[in-house]
């Protein structure tokens, strides 16, 4: 069989399987991300079936998937929302960073993966999945709940932290010197500040530049701008993903809404391929040895996220059940943990074990997160039963 035919057949089979997996995920009401990862493990190096033909395509598509994930994350928030969110929740955000970065970083140091490994694993355990959290909030009818703005502001804080963290990570992974690293961080901080300032005052100009009534022109403008900005950011060592995120923030208002609508199917496709590509590069036989550590990490970081949510909601004057709902909504880790691990693996600066641990960890947390959010209330009621009947009657 000639090479093109083989590639097309493999790609078709993979995308078709992803469709089946996404349908299965929808049927049982879970996030499709863990299933995509498992799909990738299945087809990748050391898996049941090895697909050679689509490696290079999967690699580039995965990169585009990351850019689209971050671009759409930026589109979701307007600059004023980011600034007010930051102001409202910075204490909770800092607590979140400290409590959830440390477990991952500490485990990486314990396993002897060094400073770079600690930097990566800290990021993996820190960042909640805003995609899963938003879906859980909508699905469980909690949009009108009082703790919801608390949860959302913490997610906003995390996403802004990513804009600073990713360039630092990129610099660390590239193994550049301390001075050069500081320079990169300074550049990225300056870029973030400038983009926020521009987006606050002149966001409509950026929106105008890419906007078009014709959806074909609009799509090409958007995609072109995103890849260009991402490429330029990568050339400056600021991380392609952050460039796309910043472009997303600068685009606002009605343009952002229609951009979200038009990019959604593309994002879904390329992000799915990104998760598969990550799985493809992870050897499934390397997972069992790290599974124990993944479980320990899962237990610890579930607790730390719950503590974060409980504290932030308590400060916002939310009653006890609401505090735990806020904590549970933050448990899920997903797309961005994989983005971080993916960057690390692609750079070759970390061991294969780290990829295996990150995969196992995200698999657990992406499944555990929605379950925790759903069952936190009944569990809480069970534990506080003796007090409830009187309280209810009173």
């Amino acid at each position, binding site marked *: 069989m000639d090479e093109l035919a083989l590639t097309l057949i493999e790609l078709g089979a993979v995308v078709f399987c992803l469709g089946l997996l996404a349908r299965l995920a929808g049927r049982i009401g879970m996030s499709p991300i863990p299933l995509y990862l498992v799909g990738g493990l299945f087809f990748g190096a050391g898996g049941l079936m090895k697909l050679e033909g689509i490696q290079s395509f999967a690699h580039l598509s995965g990169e585009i998937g990351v850019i689209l994930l971050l671009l759409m994350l930026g589109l979701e*928030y307007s600059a004023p929302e980011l600034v007010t969110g930051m102001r409202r929740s910075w204490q909770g955000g800092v607590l979140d960073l400290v409590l959830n970065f440390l477990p991952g970083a500490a485990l990486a140091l314990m396993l002897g993966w060094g400073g770079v490994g600690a930097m990566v694993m800290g990021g993996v355990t820190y960042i909640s999945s805003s995609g899963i959290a938003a879906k859980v909030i909508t699905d469980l009818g909690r949009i*009108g709940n009082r*703790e*919801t*703005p608390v949860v*959302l502001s913490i*997610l906003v804080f995390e996403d802004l932290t990513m804009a600073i963290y990713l360039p630092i990570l990129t610099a660390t992974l590239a193994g550049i010197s301390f001075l050069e690293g500081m320079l990169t961080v300074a550049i990225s901080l300056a870029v973030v500040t400038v983009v926020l300032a521009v987006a606050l005052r002149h966001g409509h100009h950026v929106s105008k530049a890419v906007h078009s009534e014709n959806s074909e022109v609009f799509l090409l403008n958007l995609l072109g701008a995103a890849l260009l900005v991402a490429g330029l950011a990568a050339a400056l060592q600021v991380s392609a993903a952050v460039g796309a995120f910043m472009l997303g923030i600068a685009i606002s208002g009605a343009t952002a809404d229609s951009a979200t609508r038009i990019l959604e199917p593309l994002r879904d496709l390329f992000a799915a391929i990104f998760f598969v590509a990550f799985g493809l590069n992870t050897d499934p036989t390397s997972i069992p040895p790290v599974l124990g550590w993944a479980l320990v990490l899962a237990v610890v970081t579930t607790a730390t996220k719950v503590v974060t949510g409980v504290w932030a909601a308590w400060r916002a004057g939310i009653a006890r059940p*609401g505090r735990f709902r806020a904590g549970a909504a933050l448990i899920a880790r997903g797309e961005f943990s994989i983005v971080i691990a993916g960057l690390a693996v692609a750079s070759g600066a970390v061991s294969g074990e780290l990829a295996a641990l990150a995969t196992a960890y995200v698999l657990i947390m992406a499944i555990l997160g929605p379950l925790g959010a759903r069952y936190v209330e009944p569990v809480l009621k069970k534990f506080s039963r003796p007090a409830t009947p009187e309280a209810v009657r009173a």
Partner: protein
Amino acid sequence: MNVEETDLPGLGRRKDFMTASGRRIGVVELREGQTELFVSTWDDPDTCQASIPLTGDEAATLGNLLGGQHLAMKLTEAHKEVPGIVTRQFSITADSPFQNQPMGKACIRTRCGVSIVAIMREGEVVPSPGPDVVLHTGDLLVAVGTQEGLDTAADILRNG
């Protein structure tokens, strides 16, 4: 009434207030233009017992129903001293002969002595509408007149 407004980054904007009965009630205006109506449970005002997605039309209709009732109650109160005067609401349905027509065409005041004192439209009040105001489907007319006059007016609005 103290309406609290809260930003929901990435989702939209929440507007709510506490009712006298101790429930929090409000709407979330979602980015995509839909509205989510919610009511808190009675034992935990932080959480929602029901969260109901409404289309733009549905939200406007609900607004008319609630606002119209309020307006009618106020008018009834005002006309209590005048015996024989009643307030009633008429909605303009899709099959009304006067939809998309100026209100003056129905000649309600001339034919039955009934005054249209306000129109509820998309949750807003159009006070003392003139004969040039064009009626739309979903409008709620607040009318004042005698019992018989209002019966005739209802018939006119339905059948022309």
